[in-house]
C-alpha cells in the first residue's frame, strides 16, 4: 500500500510538471503582456530545474522505515564504514550542483529583463507587446 501510494504520488508530481511546462510555454508565447511573459519565464525555469532535481532523486530502500539524511561529518575521519553508509544513502549531487547555479543565473537574467521592461515602458508608454509591435517602423 505504501509502495503504491509512493508510486502514485510520484506519477502525479511528474505529470504536473508537464502541465506546468505547457502552461508556462502558453503564457510565454501567447500572452501579450511583458510582465506576464516574465512571470511565465520564471515558472518555466523553475519547472526545468525541478526536472533536473527529479533526475537525481533516489528512492529510499524500504518505504516503511523513516529515511535518515546522509551526513558525512566525522572529522577527523574515523573509519571507512561512515563513507560506505554515506554513499549508500546520498542522492545524486550533480543535478543539484547544476540547478543551484542555474537558479542564481536565472535571477540575474530576470533582473536584466526587468531593466529591459523598464526601458520599454519609458520608450513606448506601454508593456503590451501588440502595441509595441504596432509602433515599429
Amino acid at each position, binding site marked *: 500500500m505504501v509502495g503504491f501510494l509512493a*508510486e502514485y504520488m*510520484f506519477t502525479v508530481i*511528474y505529470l504536473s510538471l*508537464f502541465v506546468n*511546462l*505547457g502552461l508556462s*510555454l*502558453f503564457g510565454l*508565447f*501567447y500572452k501579450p503582456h511583458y510582465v506576464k511573459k516574465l512571470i511565465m519565464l520564471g515558472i518555466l525555469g523553475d519547472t526545468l530545474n525541478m*526536472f533536473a532535481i*527529479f*533526475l*537525481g*532523486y*533516489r*528512492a*529510499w*530502500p524500504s518505504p516503511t522505515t523513516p529515511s535518515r539524511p546522509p*551526513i*558525512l*561529518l566525522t*572529522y*577527523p*575521519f574515523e573509519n*571507512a564504514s561512515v*563513507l560506505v553508509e*554515506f*554513499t549508500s544513502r*546520498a*542522492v*545524486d*549531487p*550533480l543535478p*543539484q*550542483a547544476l540547478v*543551484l*547555479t542555474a*537558479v*542564481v*543565473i536565472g*535571477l*540575474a*537574467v530576470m*533582473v*536584466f529583463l*526587468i*531593466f*529591459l521592461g*523598464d*526601458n520599454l515602458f519609458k520608450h513606448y508608454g506601454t508593456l503590451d507587446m501588440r502595441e509595441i509591435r504596432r509602433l515599429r517602423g
Partner: protein
Amino acid sequence: MKRVVSLAVLVTIVLGMSLLLALSGQSFYPSENLRWLAIVYLNTTYNPYLPDFTVWSPEAVTAIVWDYRGLDTLYETTVFYLAIISGLALGRGVKRLNQKPTDESGLSPIVKTVTKITGPMILAVAASIGLHGHLTPGGGFQGGATAAVVPVVFIVVFSSFYLLWKGVSSQRMLTLRSAGLIGIGLTSIALFLAGLLLGLPSYVFQNIAKAGSPLSMPYDVHGALLSGTLWWFNLFEFLAVSSGFTLAFIILMTPEAEEKW
C-alpha cells in the same frame, strides 16, 4: 484557427520533451541505485583513502561546483556578471532622486523595529550558509542570494533612500562586487602561480595535490576543515552575488528624477 495552431504547438513541444526524457532514461521512477558518475563523486568527495582524488569536503555539491566542475562555475559567474552589468547599462544615464528619509516614510514603527532586529539575523544566516558551504548544504551562491534579501526588505520597509543614506551606495556595491570577482580569479590561479614560483608542476583551478603535482591548498587549519580553495571560492562568490543583487535592487528601486541629464 489561430487557437488550434497555438494548441498544436504547445502539445507538440510538451509531448516531444516528454518523449525525449523517456528515451534518455529507461525509467523515471526513482530507483535505489545511482549512476556510476554520482557514485564516483560521492566516494571521492571526502575520502582519506584516496588522497590524490579527494576534495576534503563532506558536502558533495560544493565540491562539484567549485572543484570537479570549477571552470564551469567560473563561466557561470561570468554569465551572472554579464547579466547584472547589461542591466546596469540599460539603466545608465538616468538621474535618480536622493532625498533624506524621514520618520513618516515607510511602514509603521512596529514593522520597522522588527526589521531592524531581523535584518542582522538574516545577514548572519546568510554568512553561515555561505561560509559553511563546504561542510553543510549551502555555498556562496545560496548565501549571497539570501543576503540580498536584506536590502530589499529595508527598501520596502523604510524608504527607497534609506540604504543610500546609510552608506550602501551603488558605487560601493560595485567595488565590493569587483573585489569578489578579483578574489575568485586570484583563488583560481593561486596554486598555478605558486607552482611557477617554486618550479613545481601545477594547474589552473588546482585544489588538492594530484599525482605528479605535489602542491595543495591547506585543507585543514588547526583542526578546522577548509577544503582548500572551496572556502575561498565560497567567500568571494558570496561577496560577488550579494553585492551584485544589492546593486541591481538599489538601482531598480530608486525613483527617477523628472528631467534627464
